[in-house]
């Protein structure tokens, strides 16, 4: 069971502010979903390797060569706030 404090803790980890009206429904819904998915706890998975990639493939490395990238003004064009040559954000400590 997920309680209110746990919801708020996870929301903080996820960088997600929740409205007061969102907290109780989330606690209830997450509890119901986790109850359901907890059925995988019943399986004997001793010695089973976790899936890393579903289709067999070996490492796909490429030479580390410099290439063109997006021009700075294009990269900045969609930003909510720009300062000089970079993205602008509020101070980490107000």
């Amino acid at each position: 069971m997920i309680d209110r404090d746990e919801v708020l803790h996870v929301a903080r980890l996820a960088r997600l502010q929740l409205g007061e009206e969102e907290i109780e429904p989330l606690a209830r819904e997450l509890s119901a979903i986790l109850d359901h998915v907890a059925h995988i706890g019943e399986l004997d998975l001793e010695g089973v390797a976790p899936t890393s990639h579903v289709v067999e493939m070996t490492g796909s490395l490429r030479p580390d060569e410099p290439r063109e990238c997006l021009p700075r003004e294009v990269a900045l064009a969609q930003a909510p706030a720009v300062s000089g040559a970079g993205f602008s954000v509020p101070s980490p400590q107000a």
Partner: protein
Amino acid sequence: MSPTEIIDLSAAQAVRAIAAGELSAAELFDAYRARAADDKLNCFTWVAPEGSGGAGPSEHAQSDAPVADAPLAGVPLAVKDLFCTEGVPSQSGSRILEGYEPPYTATAVSRLEAAGASLLSKTNQDEFAMGSSNENSAFGPVLNPWDRTRVPGGSSGGSAAAVAAGLAPWALGTDTGGSIRQPAALCGIVGLKPTYGSVSRYGMIAFASSLDQAGPLTRDVTDAALLLRHMVGHDPCDATSLRFPHEIELPRAERMDGIRLGVPAELTGAEGIEPGVLQAFHAALDRAAQLGAEIVRDLSLPHAPHALSAYYVLAPAEASSNLARFDGVRYGLRAEAAKDLLDMYERTRHDGFGPEVKRRIMLGTYALSAGYYDAYYGRAQRVRTKIAEDFSTAFEAVDFIVTPTAPTVAFELGEKTSDPLAMYLNDYCTVPMSLAGIPAISIPCGLHDGLPVGLQIAGRAFSENALLDAAYALERALGFDGSPARA
């Protein structure tokens, strides 16, 4: 040709008509653009402006190449919102990306454009592809053209409804746990999820990277093959993309002699599959048997009943990580008047994400958090291995596995929105194939209560050509009529 005659052409027929000079690419584009602009189903988040497309067939269309090998010159394409298209809004159905115009185009789209397809529209979808009804879109729900009080399925609901309603000849979608196949089933069209890795994910706004695959939503199996042919292949921009081992052929099979179709008990006898759906499914298998297929009814996929649980750990876990990028810094929405950086992140995400996306971010963050990782994510990855092994074992005994695509026909708008688990059960039959990374196609196999039922056929990795052939033979024998949805 009259606009009605033009709309009645499949995409492959339209390519042929253009190559034969019976139709111009501009006429075709304009006919669809006019219909798309008049859309009453809320299929689109963007439609090409008048006079913008179908300028004429590319030079390849006039080459001596056989008609079946001709490129897609001029045939318009609807593209799910989450594919980045340069200079065209690409919002993944989310408020947090409202108005976002990417600086580059997704590889799957640019390949199709290079083959001559022209961008007709961007299609509505569940926010970040999370949903099975299209009701999670920030831009409103899509209506099912068979019955406008019902959902089209999701998350590629706009793509499916647009193709079914004749508002686009064909469309691109993406499938993470069923998001191409289920809406295709609910709208009475064809939807194919290719083998994981066969189509580049570069430029797709990510949901769950180990599962997301782009694929076609089309009026028939031939169109699915034609579109897929120009999508597959390795892309240096996506390290998980693979060189497809052979060219995608247009299907030609008329019979299914010697083909073994396995009916897994776990996915066809489950509670919650509507009797009318099962009836249409079994009637389709009878047709397959008449075509020479051998129906293997005692097949088992023992771990399939756990696929949904594993999926609803893995997909939200990956999503919680992928969606961390939406923080109000580089693009999209930013909440105003934040008191510091952390506050800006938290408020932006509060304002920008809808309820289902928040739910999955919370679920995924929880499953990956300290103390729970092994119990949830670690276990789910092991279950995934068992599911893939089940399929490998099954494919020693059969060529394809068949199930209903979705447990029900299209349901009423609002019917399942208050119960997330009930909504998730839509994916019961499609999620196992996603976890195993294998290709699966949904074709319409009949009606129940006047609404389409989808048949899912799944095969081994990279068996797309054989899969398309089998689906094609069965499609011809079933003779499903999708025209009511275009009325």
